[in-house]
């Protein structure tokens, strides 16, 4: 097992809000991300290069902290799916917004992941985070034990527990709500992705049209010909402007609301997983209680012991989970608000710029007549 730091006072030596994933280096099939973070004390930056495997290592590490009470009640910041160099269409679909553009959205998503981890009251205490962010040597890339993953895969088999009736009204409501919200967020995210994809297609189509218009330009002294050529050139410029406008609209969509919705979706999934882990524990507890009740006197003590242990664990989980959920909800509203405001402002800016450009074009054409 990894070396674990339980020292609560060991806060990270970087400014949480200044963690950035600045660059992606491609070397054959592997991608390396450059992570830059500001030192908390004094000036200077940490520059580290990490691969996706390193991110996975961090994630695993956080999952497998067994000695933190109620760790299963934590909503782990979601790590985006693996980015491939030449992703298949299926993988691209899985990535959603993160597969768009030249990796920028993906970097943003990784950045968000790191910030969430670093900002998390429980997770940031883990020494692995500090190592990940500051050590110039890559963290141990050995095969990690699949502790929590094993449990998770078991959990998958026990999907039927999902519908298990909760004992706590709060969690029952949250579970129902989460179920609803996960579906809707995912759908909204998908639909919005469609919009962005179509916008990009339009931008490309405008670009093609604009280029093709240059074909109609004819050389010659004939004023009539020159006139028509001029019209074609101007129209080509118009469509180039439309293309630019569309491209920046798509970019705005992608970088604000798109990423926001994507993050939302993944967070909802993370919450769902956490709630599920809790439900599993609940089932476990109920079974233990049942067993303890039914147990023969000989085994009674052992069963009671087990029941007690599970009960404690469950209580801890519930405690953490409650906090996490409330925290997540405020974060969720904040994320969406930020995304919407940013989006709206950017779209407004783009629309105004485009309107300006179009009116210039219009003037040009009116002068030509």
């Amino acid at each position: 097992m990894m070396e674990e730091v339980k020292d609560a006072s060991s806060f990270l030596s970087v400014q949480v809000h200044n963690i950035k994933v600045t660059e992606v280096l491609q070397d054959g099939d592997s991608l390396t991300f450059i992570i830059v973070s500001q030192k908390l004390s004094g000036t200077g930056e940490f520059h580290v290069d990490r691969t996706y495997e390193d991110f996975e290592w961090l994630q695993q590490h956080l999952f497998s902290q067994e000695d933190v009470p109620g760790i299963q009640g934590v909503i782990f910041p979601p790590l985006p799916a693996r980015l491939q160099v030449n992703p298949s269409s299926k993988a691209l679909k899985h990535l959603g917004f993160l597969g768009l553009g030249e990796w920028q959205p993906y970097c943003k998503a990784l950045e968000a992941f790191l910030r969430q981890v670093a900002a998390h009251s429980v997770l940031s205490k883990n020494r692995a985070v500090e190592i990940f962010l500051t050590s110039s040597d890559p963290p141990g890339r050995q095969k990690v034990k699949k502790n929590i993953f094993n449990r998770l895969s078991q959990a998958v088999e026990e999907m039927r527990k999902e519908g298990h009736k909760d004992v706590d009204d709060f969690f029952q409501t949250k579970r129902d709500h989460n179920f609803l919200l996960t579906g809707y967020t995912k759908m909204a995210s998908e639909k919005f992705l469609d919009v962005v994809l179509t916008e990009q297609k339009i931008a490309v189509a405008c670009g093609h049209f604009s280029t093709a218009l240059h074909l109609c330009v004819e050389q010659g002294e004939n004023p009539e010909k020159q006139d028509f050529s001029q019209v074609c050139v101007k129209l080509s410029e118009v469509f180039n402007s439309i293309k630019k406008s569309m491209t920046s609209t798509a970019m705005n969509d992608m970088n604000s609301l798109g990423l926001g919705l994507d993050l939302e979706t993944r967070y909802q999934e993370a919450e769902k997983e956490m709630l599920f882990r809790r439900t599993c524990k609940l089932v476990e507890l109920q079974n233990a209680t049942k067993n303890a009740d039914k147990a023969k006197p000989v085994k009674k003590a052992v069963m009671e012991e087990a029941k007690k242990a599970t009960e404690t664990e469950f209580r801890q989980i519930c405690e953490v989970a409650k906090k996490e959920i409330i925290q997540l909800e405020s974060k969720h509203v904040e994320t969406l608000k930020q995304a919407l405001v940013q989006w709206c402002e950017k779209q407004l800016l783009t629309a105004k710029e485009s309107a300006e450009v179009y009116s210039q074009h219009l003037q040009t054409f009116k002068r030509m007549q």
Partner: protein
Amino acid sequence: MASSTERSPPPFPDTEDQDVLDSEEVGGRDSDDDDDGEELFMSASNTPLTKQDTPASPDSQASDLMDDLSAEPPSSQTEKSAASSSPEEFVDLTNNLNETAESKVAAEISSPEPSDDFFDILGSETQKVEVEASVKADSGEASSGITDLPGGKIGSEQGFSSAAPIINLDADFSDNNSQPSRVEDNASDPLAQVLSDTPAANPKKPSSAVLDLFEDDGSDIFTGTPQTKPASQPQKGLFGEPDEDLFGEPLGAMPKKTTENEVKSSTTKAAGPTSSTGGAPQDRKSTEPADIFTEEAVTTVPRTSNTSTVNSKANGVHSEEDLFSEATVELSLDSPRSGRKKEETSKPSASSSSSSLSAPAKQAKQPPAALEELEDEEEAEMEDQFDVFISVKDPEKVGDGMNAYMAYKVSTETSLPMFRNKLMTVRRRFSDFLGLYEKLSEKHGPNGLIVPPPPEKSILGMTKVKVGKEDSSSADFLERRRGALERYLQRVVNHPMLLQDPDVREFLEKEELPRAVSTQALSGAGFLKMINKATDAVNKMTIKMNESDAWFEEKLQEVESADQHFRKLHALVESLVVHRKELSLNTANFAKSAAMLGSAEDNTALSRALSQLAEVEDKIEQLHQDQAANDTFSFAELIADYIRLLGAVRGSFDHRIKAWQRWQDAQAMLQKKREMEAKLLWANKPDKLQQAKDEIVEWEAKVTQFERDFERVSATVRKEVIRFEKQRTKNFKRQITKYLESLLQSQQQLIKYWEAFLPEAKAIA
């Protein structure tokens, strides 16, 4: 006779034409002396007969004018007309004309508006009129001198007063022959002026009838006639003869009348083959000098005999015969003379016969001075559309099942006097539009005109409509087609020559239209195939034809490449439209899921903001939809129109090459005949020699005619292509401006939406 015609074709055929005309005129005048006696006798005895005939017919015939249109074959028509009076004949001939695709002449004659039509009249027609007029005038003069026949007199004056300015104009024309198209443009205007001025200048004539004569079409002329008896005569002189002249060839095929005359029986034979070969190419260029000497003999005979029944038959024979002999002499003398000289000679000759000439003569003098001004005017005319606005509205399904068809409301708004009303509304079905196009392209296509093509038939689109599926694609289809039909008609009426076409007016005015048949050939794939075939044919012929004119060579290449580019652009715009529609759909979907997300949201402010977002996205969806429509109608349809129009342009090139081909074929034939003659000479067979010589003369005439034809078609095509290019630039500019306006508007709408949404987003707590 033979000596004159054996001359090789001159570099500027019009100059020669001029000479011939001039000389002929002189010759004709000279011949008066010989003819006087007979003419006198004939006209004195026969005029009353014609007088009786003329007033009787107009009323009944005028109304039949259009209805007869397509019914009777040319031969029966001409026979009928030969028996009846001249107005009817004119009518029938007009109809024949429509049938035989030669109707352009009729249109020109019947509607002497200041338009490009006159280019043709000038190029070929007027010379004929002139010749006829002079001949007629001579006879008329002679007869009036003794029997005081007012009709004949007026007829001659009319003929002369119009003939004189034409000569002037022609002189200009031939002077500036290096730039034919421009000069023609200019020359057309003064001619029209002259024509319309003539009646005013001539106090002898009843002005109302004459005004009708010039400003209205054939039917109006004859409805106007009964007002004054003597007025019918001049009209006959002016209209009946030139008309028949045009149909000289079809008439030549009618042996009944011509064989009566023994003198002409031999020439009729000669005309027989000519009319079959020369008639087929639909040539109105029967005015060629050679033509006058050979074919003309035949064509004029039935004409005169028909027009004035018996009266001018004898006249025609004599004067023409004399004319030929005289003309031959004069020709050799005249040919080196300049156009200006001819102008001088013709003027006095005209003034001697008519006092009314002074005004037209002055008019005719103006053109050279006002040339530039007129040129500008002409250009302005081309730029400015005619005051005719067409709207095609309310597509409506008529009938059920597979026999159903779409009918459209065609409204015309105009201030042009040539239309009966300021606002006309008729219902037309789709095949009527195609029928109109077929008529127009048949008539005007061979002359090199670019006839705007209608949208092609779409079996798929129409089947959907027929089945009654009320989905968006069939609505889209109908709207596209409606727009295309509207633009098609607008293009037709914007064309100065096509606007004059009686079929166009009938289409816009008449309540009921005979059902257009065999438009099936134009359906969908068939239409494309046709265009492709035409393209192939053009390509093949281009290889054969060693293009002498670099301009055409260059233009053809340009048109070809423009066609390719436009096709590419069209595909691109269509895909853009598809994406726009997709975006609209996706935006709608997103709006729905945003609304759902909003409803599931616990936070009130966020929930509210999300449902607001859903509303905004709904509005944006509408914007996208409008934008898709805007892209479709501003560009996709515009480009589709131009792909069709480029097809028409190529068609006109095709017609030009066909004309060239005819010319070349005729030349080859002439060569063959000459060789034959040489062989016969060598073999010393005098009996066959004469026949060979006749044939050579005949083929020489054809070569000159076809060459002139080719020149004329070339000039027209050139002018049309320039017009097309001008229109294209203008059209695009206008459309782009419109597009940008709507683009800007939608962008501003978008800004409004976002501005309204921003506080909502900020209000999330």
